[in-house]
């Protein structure tokens, strides 16, 4: 199906709010090369065919989360999507739904970031001093790490909100991204912030708006599984409400092993201190 002479048709949604009445699809033809991603195709268009095309991208390796787009009816990272995996020579590329479009494929993530901020995405402890000016370190077992690690891979690409049917009609819904992150912190054994976060998540536009369509987990390019996080968060909220939270043990703070002297590590040969030391010692190799 895909050979080097193959021409891939990119139907890209164009929309300039200053000039256009509404969005329209524009067709571009990009020659297929082995390993061509959707983002490569868009760069080809921008460089060779139409410099006015606007899209957002940065790292090209599914780390930054900038190039989320609606590709052939599903949200994908353009850099993480091979043309071959779409199994079609005609691509329809639109901006992510459930956001506002700024231009062409660029959408406004302000609501996403505001919701993320609303759930207090940081470790909350009753004794704040230890967080601001740490003197000791928290003990956490590998099993405790596993309980939230998966959710900490979120890079705020916003694909989950584009996939979510609830976010399609309720723009105040916190959404899988924010709620997944709320669970990431609530599940952290160092964190004691559920009581504080409950105010932000336990309402009609919070966890209870999720009805487990599961599209967020399917769309997530990092395997974060926000749907699982939201359901586990619901369980935490319910257990807390009925007073059955089994008194989760908070990670203990222990002094760092500073009793022993710091092991002396010799500076590598190319560093300034060692060079100086060698000159001082009368090393005349040079």
């Amino acid at each position, binding site marked *: 199906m895909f050979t080097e002479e193959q021409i891939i048709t990119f139907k890209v949604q164009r*929309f300039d*709010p*200053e000039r256009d009445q*509404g*969005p329209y699809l524009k067709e571009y033809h990009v020659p297929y090369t082995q390993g061509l991603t959707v983002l490569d195709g868009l760069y080809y268009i921008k460089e060779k065919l139409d410099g006015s095309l606007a899209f957002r991208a940065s790292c090209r390796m599914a780390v930054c989360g900038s190039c989320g787009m609606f590709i052939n*009816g*599903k949200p994908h990272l353009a850099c993480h999507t091979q043309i071959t995996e779409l199994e079609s020579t005609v691509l329809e590329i639109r*901006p*992510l*739904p*459930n*956001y*506002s*479009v*700024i231009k062409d494929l660029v*959408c*406004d993530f302000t609501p996403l970031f505001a919701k993320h901020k609303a759930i207090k995405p940081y470790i909350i402890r009753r004794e704040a001093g230890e967080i601001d000016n740490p003197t000791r370190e928290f003990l956490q077992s590998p099993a405790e790490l*596993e*309980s*939230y*690690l*998966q*959710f900490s*891979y979120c890079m705020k690409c916003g694909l989950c909100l584009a*996939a979510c*049917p609830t*976010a*399609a*009609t309720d*723009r105040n819904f916190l959404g899988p991204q924010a709620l997944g992150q709320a669970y990431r912190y609530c*599940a952290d054994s160092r964190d004691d912030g559920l009581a504080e976060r409950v105010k932000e998540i336990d309402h009609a536009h919070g966890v209870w708006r*999720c*009805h*487990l*369509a*599961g*599209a967020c*987990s*399917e769309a*997530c390019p*990092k*395997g*974060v*599984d926000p*749907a*699982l*996080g939201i*359901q*586990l968060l*619901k*369980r935490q909220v*319910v257990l807390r409400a009925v007073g059955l939270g089994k008194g989760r043990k908070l990670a203990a703070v222990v002094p760092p092993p500073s009793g022993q002297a710091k092991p002396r590590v010799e500076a590598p040969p190319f560093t300034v201190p060692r060079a100086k030391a060698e000159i001082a010692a009368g090393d005349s190799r040079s």
Partner: protein
Amino acid sequence: MAEGRKRENYLGIKGWVRAGRYGLERYLYFLQRLTGFGLIIYLLIHLYETSFRLRGEVTWEGVMGLFDQPVFAVLEYVVMAAFIFHALNGLRLVIEELGFALGKPRRPVYPYETSLQRQRPFMWAIGVLIIVFLVVSLYDFLV
């Protein structure tokens, strides 16, 4: 420059209905909402219909005569089917929304396995149960 001119791109109800190439759960989500809405409408009609009982025997018999037509028997089965689906799928959702049957969080190793895939055996079991109930109630309506 027109500051802040943006075009809203929310999918609206279309986003519920058109589940595209997503998994079955997204379709169940829509069916759950649809059947829930249908059952509320049915409840209102049912209350209105039974209120005719207050207007005496003759009116009541007249209304009941109207509902004796076969089309209402079919509609009654549709209500029953909606009820069966809504109740059993709702049971699945209650169990899963409390964090059961979804498995534990794990390191995301490509190809990612989501909690949705882990709950599928349970979902299919509920699906079989729904079909059994549908068939039994259909038999009940026909006989």
